[in-house]
């Protein structure tokens, strides 16, 4: 059996990758994927704990996260398409109308 710490380290690496990608990438779709990466990193730690302590709630929670992520993907992609249609770019540095 793989020890819990391995899962957690992998989960942490995935999450940090997501954070870094979120901060560094300029393409909205890449940022979006980074967010999914962070979510999945967290999911991994949930299931790892669930398996470790034989508690189902962690696995149930993962399902909730996945449902929300799916909904988010649907809405987020729609927004991205709308942004692309009006701005003709997916570079977030150029989508800055809120700036002063």
């Amino acid at each position: 059996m793989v020890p819990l710490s391995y899962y957690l380290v992998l989960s942490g690496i995935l999450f940090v990758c997501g954070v870094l990608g979120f901060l560094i990438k300029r393409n909205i779709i890449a940022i979006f994927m980074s967010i999914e990466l962070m979510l999945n990193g967290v999911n991994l730690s949930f299931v790892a704990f669930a398996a470790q302590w034989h508690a189902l709630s962690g696995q149930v929670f993962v399902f909730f996260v996945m449902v929300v992520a799916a909904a988010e993907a649907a809405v987020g992609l729609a927004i991205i398409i709308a942004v692309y249609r009006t701005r003709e770019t997916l570079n977030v540095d150029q989508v800055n109308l809120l700036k002063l």
Partner: protein
Amino acid sequence: MTPNPYLWLIQLPPLAGAAINGFFGRRSSKQAITAIALIFSGAAFGLALFLAAIFSSASAPYYFDLAHWIRSGSFQVDFSFYLDQLSLVMLLVVTGVGFLIHIYSVGYMWEDDGYYRFMSYMNLFMFFMLTLVMAKNYLVMFIGWEGVGLASYLLIGFWFIKDSAASAGKKAFIVNRIGDFGFLIALFLMIKHFGSLDFTHVFAAVRTLPTETAGVGLLSAIGLLLMVGAAGKSAQIPLYVWLPDAMEGPTPVSALIHAATMVTAGVYMVARSSAIFERAPMAMMVVAIIGTLTALFAATIGIAQTDIKKVLAYSTVSQLGYMFMACGVGAFSAGIFHLMTHAFFKGLLFLAAGSVIHGIGGEQDMRKMGGLRVYMPVTFLTMSIATFTIAGFPPLAAYFSKDEILWKAYSSPNGSWVFWLVGVITAFITSFYMFRLWFLTFFGDYRGATAHDAHDPSRAGAPSTVAQGGSAPHGHGHGHGEPHESPWVMLGPLVILAILSFFGGWVGYHDHFQHFLAPVFQSGAAAELAHESGEAAGKGTEMLLMLISVTAAVLGFLLAWTLYLRRPQLPEHIATSLGELYQAVAHKYYIDELYAVLFVKPLIDGSTTILWHGVDQGVIDAAVNDSADAARHVSDNARHMQSGNLRSYAGWVAAGGAAVIAYMVWMGVTR
């Protein structure tokens, strides 16, 4: 006490009349407005007569609890009404004289654009006055008290387009507010110490307390504060200043509200609170002194006025002073007696003056009248009766009531010869200025404008300008040539009031009136009557004093006759030779100016500099503006964080998350 629903029902017709005319009057015909106003006020009078008829056979006062109002712990105030001999007298005066003046107003106000408004206000006044006199506790009385103040305000400022009328209304309201302040504090004291405002409970509680012979105790304080309220409503020194200005209202209003009924509310209230006053001799003394001073003071001002209504206004103030003098020496029934006869003859005087003003096209200056007895004989006859009455000629009404007061002022245990002397001097002055008015108005030659110059624009500023403005007592549409007699709808009430002024005093013959009111003023009146019967030798003195006061009245008549009929140039000479003194009297002793300097101007200046510029702009506005400025300064710096750059936001989120994690790691996670 027996319950009787009529006490409540009687107040409904005037209220209904006011509501109907107020809401629908604008679109109804004048005939309909007249019918509603007269039927509903007449219904109140009819019910009052009915109540008087059944009350005469009743053994105990009536009461009626309409509804609960305030219930708080053991303290309770209800909408309840009360009828005893005192309220019955007031009830009959208010509805009877009120109804007559309603009839008169039909003629006087017919041409006015605001006819429906006027009738509605008059009915409203009657409703509140009935509430005032029939209240069973001080709070319901206070509703009526404030309500008649409101009606008075509305009617003084009835021609609100005229600036002077609008400010006179405000003045009346504000001065009354000062009095109400005292009244309210008196009520608070009663709540605190007696736990009730009901007349029966309060007076029962008061009767258990000893008489406050030395110093000022609770009862003296309540009495004095009540007197402050009464001085406001009944125009006594130092709050009388609003009443003369109130003459800006239409004449029927002056007759009904500012002579016959509302201004006597203070006397009624003091008489109603007789149980309190009887145990507070100091407060009684103050009431008597204020009354006596006011009587003399106002009468002297009346001498030099030229506006016919102003003379009558000061005369009203002076007569109210007599009533307070009576209450102050403990002769409450004499005060109420004079209140009743005063309602008759002063109502009549005002209505007759209104008839004169109406007949000569809105002129109020007596110097422009004269010789009117030829043109308006009925008005002349009724006015003569009223004049002889107020002067105190026997056997007219005021002769009985005024002499009753003067006799009580002299003989009562609380009285003194000083009150009597001032009273007689006042009677002499009263007689003089009333006959001055009478001679100036009805005798000599007509000095007023005729057809050619009646509408001369140069008279703008005179009270008659309203008439030309079209919303006036008088707008016949034709030029005003000869003075003419008023229509019978106005003369009818004059005649009835003249009859009452003539015979109204006879109810006081052999102290009938006093015996009638005796149950109300239980202890005091009983003592008074006992005192009287035990004083057989007093009869001679009473006759002598009566003779003196009648002589004073005759002297006043003779003096006025000499000055204004036989030697019309003489007053001019006297006025110039008196110089400063005459000027002071003609300018009402500069009291208005004094109040302006003492109270009004400091108040305005203080409000402007301290409250407006200082507190309002400097503190309140400044607090709001400065905090807004501070918020903007902070935001100006903080807004750079909100760059609009998505990745910098993400950076803040990440940094924040890192900070939280660092904190948790540093401090350790505890359950």
